[in-house]
C-alpha cells in the first residue's frame, strides 16, 4: 500500500534528508514485514550515515 497522497505531501516538507528517512520509516511500518527492532536499527543507521556525511563536508 502506498503512503496516502496528503500524508506523503506533508512528509515531503520535512527538511533535507529527514523527508527520505521519514518516508522509509512509514513504508516499512506499512509493509509490516520487519520487526520494530530491525526498523529502529535501520533508521538509526540512516541517521548515522546522514550525520557522518554532514561531518565529512
Amino acid at each position, binding site marked *: *500500500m502506498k*503512503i*496516502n*497522497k*496528503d*500524508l506523503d505531501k*506533508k*512528509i515531503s516538507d*520535512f527538511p533535507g534528508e*529527514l523527508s527520505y*528517512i*521519514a518516508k522509509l*520509516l*512509514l513504508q516499512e*511500518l*506499512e*509493509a*509490516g*514485514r520487519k520487526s*520494530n527492532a530491525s*526498523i*529502529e536499527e535501520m*533508521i*538509526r543507521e540512516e*541517521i*548515522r550515515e*546522514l*550525520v*557522518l556525511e*554532514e*561531518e565529512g563536508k
Partner: protein
Amino acid sequence: MKLIEISLNNFRQFYGKQKIEFAGGDENITIVFGENGKGKTGIFRALMFGLYGSTHIQQDNPKEKIHLVNFLAMDRNPNMPIDTTVKLVFEHKGRKYEINRLARGYKTGSEITEKIMDAELNITDEQGNYSAEPITDENEIKNILNGILDESIKDFFLFDAEKIETLAKTDAQVKAEVKNGIVKLLQIDKLEGAINLLKRLHSSEKRRITSSSHNLDLTRKQNDIDTLTEDIANIQEKMSLKEENKVSCALEIERIEAQLAENEDVKRIQEKLNAEKDKKNLHVRLAKDKKNEIKGELIANGPHLIMKDTYYSVKNYLDQILVDQKDLIPIEVIEKSLKDLVCACCGNDLHENKDHLNHIELLKNNFKRSELTPLITQITSSIHDYGLEEDEILSSIDSKLREFREIKDGIEEIEREIDRYSVDVQQKAQEQENLKNLEVTLNDKKAYLRELEVEVETLKIQMSEKEKSLDALEKEFTRLLRDNESLRIDSKILQYIETLKERFEAVFKEYSDEMRSKLTAETTEIFKTLIDRKDKDLVKRIDINEKYEIDIMGWDNINITQDISQGQRQVVALSFITSLAKVAAGGSEDINFPLFMDTPFGRISGNNRDHLIDNIPNLTSQWVLLLTDTELSRTEEMRFKSTGKLGKWYKLDQIEPGHSDIVEIQVNETMSTRG
C-alpha cells in the same frame, strides 16, 4: 482495484461450474438478482474466500462451522472427496491478479468433513508478462493481497447489509469500528507507530551513548532521567487504570440509569393505571346518577307508559258515553244561546230560526245533569294531555338510556385498559422492588466517579510536574552531551531522532485534523447527493469529531444523531463509507476500489434508493450489487436502466434444493418480479 470475474465450482449453493463477469468502464454496475435463499450471500462469501481465504463473514457466528462445499455434489458422491474452487481475477494498478483457492469436502453418513487446501496466485505485470511460477505461500499471498486491500478495512468496500445496519447504529462498538476504519485507511495508525518507534529509539540510543561514554555526569543524569521516566510510566499506568475505572463506572451508571428509566416506565404505567381507576370511579358515579334519573322518570311516567293502550280504550269508551248522554250540550251553553238568541254551537240567529229556538228550549226543559260528566271530562282531558306529552317522555327516556349505555361502554373500555396496565405493572413489579436499591447503588457509583475524577486530576498534576523536571534533565543531558567533543556525532544523531519525532508529532496532529475535516466535507457532500430532496434540509453537516465518531448536525447546529430515522441513518452510513473510500484513495474523483454491496437497500426509502442508484455509479469505479426481490421492483429496475450505467445483469435460479444457477440476463430484458 477492478474486479474482472469470479468462477465457482461446487461452491455453497452453486453446483458445478458457474461464473460472473463484472462490469467496468462507463457501464460500471453489476447486479446479481436473487430472492432470499437463492445464494446472493454465497456470492459474497465466494469473494471473501477468494480474496482472503475467509470462511466466515461479518454476519456469521465465528463459533459456528460454515460449509463451503456444495451439499448436492457430496450427496451424489458419498464417501468421495469433492473439491470446491473459487477463481478470482482482478486488476490493480496495471497488473492482473488471478487467485485460485481450493477447499475439499467429504460426506460419510451424515458427517461432513471439510478442509481448506491450497491457494495459488498468478500475477501478470504491466507489460503482459505472466509470472513464471505461481505464488503458493499463504503468507506471501496474504501480504500481496493485504497490500492491495487490507483485510482489516475490506469491510468498508465489500460489505453486506449487516455492515450498513451496524454502521447506522450509534453504540460503542460502531464508534470503535469507525475509528479503526479511519485511522487504518488514512494511515494515521502508521504515524502513531512511527512516533512511538522514534521515542523508543531515542531512549535506547541515549542509554547506549551513556554507557559507552564512561562519563560520570552523563551517567548520573541518565540515571535521574531513567528514574523520572519510570515514575512517569508508573503515574501513567495508574492514570490508565483510573481512566479504565472511570469508563466502566460511567458505563455502570449508564446501565443503572437505563434500569431506573425502565422503572420510571413502571411508575408511568402505575400513574396511568391510577388515572384509569379514577376515570372508572367517575364513570361509575355518572352511571349511578343517570340510573337515578331514569328511575325518577320511570316512576313518574312508567305507569302511564304501561297503561297507554288501556288509557286510549278507556278514553274512546268515555267519549262514547258522553256522546250517548243527554247532557252532551252543557246547560250553560243552552242558557247562553237562549239569552243571546244566537246558537252558541252553530251561530244561527234564533230570531229568524224559530225551529232552532224551539229545539233549544226543548233541550232546556228536558235537561238533566249527569253526576258523571265532570269526572269523565276530567279523565278524558288527562288522557288527552298525556297523549301530547307521550313522545317527549319516550324520547327523554330513550336518550337517557343511550347515555347510560355509553357510560357503561366507557367503563368496559376503561376496565380493559386497567387490565392491560395491571399486567404490565405485575411483570415489572419485581424491578420496582429493586428501585430503591438501584438508586442507592447509583448514588454510590456517582460518588465513586467523582472520586476517580479527582484522583485522575491529582495524577495529572503530578505527571505534569514530573514531566517538567524530566524536560529540564533532558536539556541538561543534551548540554553535557554537546559539550563533550568526543560525543559530538552521537549528540547529533540523537538530535536528529528528536527532530524527526517532533516533526511526526506535528504532522500527526495537523494531518488528523485535516483528514477529519476532509471526511466531514466529503461525507456531507455525498449525503446531500444521496439523500432524498425533502430530507436534504434536515442535516447541515456530518461531522467526524475528535474521537472519530460520526455526529449528525441539524441546521441549528444541534446534534441530531439519535433523532433521525434508521433509513436516513443508513444513507449517512453509506455516505461515510463512500467518502472514507474517496479520501483514502487520495481524493481522486473515482474511488479506486469496487463497492460490493450485499442487500444494501433494506430500510432505505424509495426516493433515497433512487438517489443512490443515480449517484453511486459516479462515485465509484465499480458497483456490484446483490439484490433481493424487495430491493429490485420495476421502479428500481427502470431507474437502474435509465442511468445508462448497467453493464452486467445476473439472476440466481434455484433448480432444486442445494443447486442454484447463475444465469446471465441481457440488460434490456426484464428482471424484477414485483411491481
